[in-house]
């Protein structure tokens, strides 16, 4: 039986100047910004985007080192606004997609951006399992407590009493606590920040990027159109307070992290939990290494031949 063998596909390089890393100019916002964001003026997501550019610039990441993945929602438009390999996937499944990228391409840093609906409603299952498997990637959830893209329906983090088009008399369902959810699911880096506090958010994002494992940030990000003032209580210039995680908090203490998550609105901000546990990436690499020793020196077809010889 004949079969179509297709040789390895290669890129068509053209005349790409061969630039050694040392001669490549570090990126600035000019090179990392792509489409102008479609967000409403005043949207909290602008800050997160600005910080992402800054993070790339500050840490001298190159365009091709990073991969930006998102699901569906206002905040999930993110990849269009960044000059980097980007993915705009389906609603709720960005983490599963990003896991495929992270596991097959350990050379990339995978960032996933999304909203509260994507993370905790339609994608809730993936949130739990990506956390428990400790897949190496950074997940920033821009939590605005409302469905914005579809114009004001109740979200899984909307507080009780929130009046939306689907709860005109006020929401009655207990909202999800993203911190508790992440800690209970087994996330190894859990932080909480706000788009209104740029230096704080930058610190959290840097720590998340440095973490080897599943790093999760809940970033309060106001929807000025459908839930204006939602986070005023956390903005000092609007009369609120921005309580940070106490200096003596032990970030390796799961129970303490869980207790911090119980603080009444506006809650506490900072790194709640940060531990090292083998990542899914490392565990799989170990399984591969162990298996490879058994077939050392063999070409792929010879490994297959060993199986076929047993089935003669």
């Amino acid at each position: 039986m004949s079969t179509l063998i297709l040789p390895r596909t290669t890129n068509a390089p053209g005349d790409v100047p061969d630039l050694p890393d040392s001669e490549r100019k570090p990126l600035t916002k000019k090179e990392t910004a792509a489409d102008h964001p479609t967000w409403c003026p005043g949207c909290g997501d602008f800050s997160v985007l600005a910080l992402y550019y800054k993070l790339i610039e500050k840490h001298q990441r190159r365009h091709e080192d990073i991969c930006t993945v998102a699901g569906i929602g206002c905040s999930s438009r993110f990849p269009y606004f960044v000059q980097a390999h980007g993915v705009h996937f389906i609603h709720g499944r960005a983490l599963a997609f990003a896991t495929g990228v992270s596991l097959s391409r350990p050379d990339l840093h995978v960032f996933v951006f999304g909203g509260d609906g994507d993370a905790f409603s339609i994608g809730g299952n993936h949130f739990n399992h990506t956390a428990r498997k400790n897949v190496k990637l950074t997940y920033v959830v821009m939590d605005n407590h409302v469905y914005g893209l579809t114009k004001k329906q109740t979200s899984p983090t909307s507080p009780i009493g929130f009046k939306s088009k689907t709860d005109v008399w006020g929401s009655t369902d207990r909202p999800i606590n993203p911190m508790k959810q992440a800690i209970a699911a087994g996330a190894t880096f859990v932080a909480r920040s706000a788009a209104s506090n740029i230096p704080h958010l930058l610190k959290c994002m840097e720590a998340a990027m440095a973490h080897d494992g599943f790093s999760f940030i809940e970033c309060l990000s106001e929807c000025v159109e459908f839930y204006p003032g939602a986070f005023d209580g956390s903005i000092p210039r609007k009369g609120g307070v921005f309580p940070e995680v106490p200096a003596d908090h032990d970030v390796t203490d799961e129970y303490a992290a869980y207790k911090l998550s119980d603080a009444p609105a506006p809650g506490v901000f900072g790194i709640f939990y940060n531990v090292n546990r083998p990542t899914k990436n490392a565990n799989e690499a170990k399984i591969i290494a162990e298996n490879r020793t058994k077939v050392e020196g063999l070409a792929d077809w010879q490994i297959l031949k060993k199986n076929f010889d047993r089935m003669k």
Partner: protein
Amino acid sequence: MSDPTVASTPVPNSPRVSQVSEAVIRIAGNSQDGIQAIGGFLARLAGRSEQEVMTFMTIPATISGGPSIFQVRMSSGEVLSAGDEADLLLCFYDHSYASHIGSLKKGGIVLYDSDHVKPKEELLTTYHHVGVPISSLTVEAIGGTGRDKGKNIYALGLLARMFDLNVPKLTKLIDERFGGKDPTVVQNALACFNSGYGHQVQGLLESFQFHPGEHAGRSQVVMSGNEALGYGILAAGVRFGAGYPITPWSDIMELLRRELPKYGGTFVQTEDEIAAVSMAIGASYGGRVAVTGSSGPGISLKTEALGWASMAEMPVVLIDVQRGGPSTGMPTSVEQSDLNIAVFGGHGDSPRVVLAPSSVEDCFYTAIEAVNIARKYSVPVLLLTDQGIATRIEAFPYPDLEKVCQDISPDLTPVMDHKPYDLSAPDGITRHVAPGTRIASGKYPVVTGLEHNELGHPGGSGKNHMDMNAKRRNKLRKLAEELPVPQVYGASEGHVLLVGWGSSKGPIEEAVKQSRKHGEAISALHLKHLNPLPNGLEKIFSGFTHVIVVELNDEGLYGYGQLCTLLRARYCDPRIRAVTKTDGLTWKVKEILQHVLTLTK
């Protein structure tokens, strides 16, 4: 045993020896009796004896077992199906005797465990009954532990004697199968086998000897369709897969999980079906086509992400081991009712490729073809197999592994510029550059499910949507042009053309073979490429008065099966009609012929 001829002078008091070219043996018992193991040994022995072999089994869907059968057809010549009727029925219980005696041909041998089976008086003249107290003799053979575990191997010994099977080869197979475990396991197995082989069967009138196989000198491998498919995926160079357990897909997933790390690859058991397809697409995006798969309801769950792959033009291979549906349906039964969801399962216009292998060997090569079509056309490819091939064991020529194994690792050489959805690409097909590739222009692509412009950024104009729809559709038209026109089995003109797909190929071609022997002008056409269909089928159809699609699904509201409906829509030819069934079993040759007769008289 089609042509028994009396051979060599019979030794007085011992059974007459008949030379046969083939035999159909049905083994009936409970699933925990290891009857699949006996069948597996017979199949593997046939493979090593350069014979053709095909098996058929039913497995109960219950966890703790239940009635189960394994049928083996061994032949010195061509085997197209597992056989309509058995020459020999081996049964362990009354229920196996009662349920399966009807599958034995008149005058066939029923070999039964007389410890459990009471033969029916009225059947004694129709079938040749041979009773052996298999359970108690097994207990005796392994030293009276009071357990009859091993009675399958004892029965294998009996069969080896009756069919003059190659004992050194069989004992080697037993050794390979049980070796490595506790040495007493092999010892017990061999003790069972030898005492079965040595048992002086009372009342046996005839024993058999196979003609030498026609494939003398040919090196063969023996495996199931699910195994062949899994190994084909590995040969194709796939190094990432993701899946969720569901019968009968799970075998493939288990194989890939076990084997991929040897090749530096990974298989992830995901939290659900949606995560599995999403993760596989993510890994494909990483630069190397990845695989996922499922059965039944799992396929429904994957359709949204599959639509994304179609829209984003991301290659991925989705294996669908079809089972009886809808919903939980008949999880361990054969059915070909997922063609509609494979071809049309998505919102919006979402072109994809659908392939269906027809045999165990074809599973191996079609897996490679599926991967390569996905790569070449940047498109999701669905590979439809069914329970009929998934669990069937066949022998096929040892593939040239060095030649078929391919490297599909990603290339990250920097490029000047890249448009993932280039409308002016010379062949109309764009291939993605993998993330990690430097793009000197500084313009990086987004892959997306939102309608997009050539760079992958939002592009919602009506004209753009039409252009992009055409791009996604036209590449499949191009594929259709490149597909080989399938060959007609039998004459290229005649009265009836049977059209089939998937595992029905064997029984359909056997039906053609039988009726041509009787002078009837019947031919068959097997379709492997179901979407797009190859070009030129209308020309083939025009040579026949009747075109009858034979498929394992319901006739539907309008009286045609799923492939038949597709062909009627494609060719607007009222001569195209269908015979369908959903009894959970593969086609019997005589069933096909009866249906054809009714439709064409």
